């Protein structure tokens, strides 16, 4: 086993071909709400216990359920008001449980990509064929409920295997959100086909911000604005990507929504920002920057 994941090659920030975005935008900003379903009594997985307490963990379960009963609507209103479409990181079983939510997102022309079947079903311990089955289920479920092609992937609860990226490329998935090594899209080394990493950001993720970094709601709003200011400035040199990954059960709480909504308005008031979806960013990158970036990486390697 190698001590390097082998997924990408080193290319430093200052030695890359220039990335451009539509209409001369300096920065592409995408918002990725994780619309998730956590099961009440999920089956055990040998490597990860879904809930901290013995089943049923009604507090943790109901906290997540808040997102689907309440929080998603507040989050969506904040995004509508600022003019953001979402790219939904979707536990695809949610289409069956709460099609009403899917319909509201689809009506707004949001993108849907896969975050596995349930957030309580991990890929740890799966064989490649079992993992193929969840990719096929995702492709089919998203097509059936939304008519969309599956373009992106965020592993369920970020559970990966060493072959996962190869499988995604094999099924024609365009981008993965599981790699956090960059502020620009980057080619991912896969056995066949092509795959890119889409900047998704742990640091901007509300779960990490609120529950790991223990930031207050207002601190989160400030962090979003500063992250944007810096990446926009750097976008003068070469286009950057900023992602705001969300969880409606967290950001959709009444004491958190306003500072978040204000940060979105702040971003949207700039005229050199591209408010995009993950798929749109990936398509633009493949069309204009993928080949030059691969060449530049080869040059560095040589």
């Amino acid at each position, binding site marked *: 086993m190698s001590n390097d994941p082998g997924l990408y090659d080193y290319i430093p920030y200052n030695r890359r071909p220039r990335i451009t975005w539509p209409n001369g935008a300096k920065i592409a900003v995408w918002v990725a709400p994780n619309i998730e379903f956590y099961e009440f009594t999920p089956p055990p997985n040998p490597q990860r216990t879904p809930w901290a307490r013995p089943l049923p963990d009604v507090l943790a379960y109901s906290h997540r359920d808040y997102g689907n009963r309440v929080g998603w609507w507040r989050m969506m209103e904040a995004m509508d008001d600022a003019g953001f479409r979402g790219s939904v990181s979707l536990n695809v079983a949610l289409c069956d449980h709460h099609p009403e939510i899917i319909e509201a997102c689809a009506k707004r022309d949001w993108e849907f990509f896969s975050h596995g079947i349930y957030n309580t079903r991990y890929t740890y311990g799966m064989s490649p064929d079992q993992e193929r089955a969840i990719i096929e289920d995702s492709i089919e479920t998203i097509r059936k409920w939304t008519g969309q092609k599956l373009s992106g992937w965020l592993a369920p609860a970020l559970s990966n295997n060493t072959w996962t990226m190869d499988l995604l490329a094999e099924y024609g998935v365009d981008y993965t959100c599981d790699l956090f090594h960059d502020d620009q899209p980057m080619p991912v080394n896969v056995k066949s086909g092509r795959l890119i990493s889409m900047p998704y950001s742990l640091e901007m993720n509300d779960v990490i911000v*609120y529950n790991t970094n223990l930031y207050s709601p207002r601190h989160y709003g400030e962090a979003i604005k500063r992250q944007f200011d810096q990446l926009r400035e750097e976008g003068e040199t070469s286009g950057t990507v900023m992602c705001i990954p969300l969880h409606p059960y967290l950001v959709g709480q*009444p004491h958190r929504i306003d500072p978040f909504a204000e940060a979105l308005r702040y971003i949207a008031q700039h005229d050199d920002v591209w408010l995009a979806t993950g798929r749109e960013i990936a398509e633009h990158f493949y069309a204009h920057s993928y080949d030059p970036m691969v060449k530049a990486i080869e040059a560095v390697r040589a």
Partner: protein
Amino acid sequence: MPLADDYLKYPARRHGMDHDRYQWSHLFDRKKVVWPNGARIALWVMPALQWFPIDMTGKPFRAPGGLTMPFPDYRHYTNRDYGNRVGIYRILKVLRDRGLPASIAVNGIIAERYPLLLKDLVEAGHEIVGHGLDMEHVHHSGLSDAAEEDLVSRTLALLRDASGQAVTGWLSPGRAQSHATPDILSRNGVTYACDWANDDLPYEMKTSGNPIFAMPHAFETDDRTVMMDFHHSEDSWAQQVKDRFDVLYRETDRYGGRVMSIPLHAWVSGVPYRVGYLREVLDYILGHEGVWTATGADILMAFRAQA
């Protein structure tokens, strides 16, 4: 060896929830709730009185605030018990000065240990809510139904005897339940429980007997969660509670009445340097038109009358 193929089977993948306790519904799509006198917000203050036994095992899991040091953990035992001796009296004064009713969640054993405290709560006119026997006895599915039923009925008997009240509200220690808890609560005359954190309004929960109602009990602006778990300052706690209120208040324009719950712990908010922030938060809220100050039982009665 790969996972069993059952791991890729999803027997509860269907419309609505993956269990039968309640129906899925969307807060912003429901009939508008109207509170008495056209109030926008039901303000519901709920301090908890908790006793953590010195021989606490913390098994199968420790309720938040539970003892963590080697036996005898005097520091945490006494710090928590401070709430029952001193902290609650500070909070009671804040409530009295503002003429505010409250629901007070009380571990059943406190009625036996500190009858004077119960007497004071009742004389002040507050609603007593069952809060389990004590903070060691968490409810979980490793308990037999009979053992859990015993915990619930003992707790309620202690509190009902000491208070002379019906005691129809419930908050489990650590907000933890077994699969059977709602059924057991219903059988024992409980009409509402505050454990589930998935809504901003009451909703009906199915049981083997009469339905009970899940009451919205703010999880993440709870004083202990914000100041002890998140380590935010008391100033930030006050800001977050006010921000929560502002959003709920604003929503009443379009979506009908809301519940603003303020869960407190006597051993957290009753500390001298923190209690001023409780005064600040309450005065801020009470400075608005259309705030109905109520107990959990009042809120449930008004809610059920229009359901």
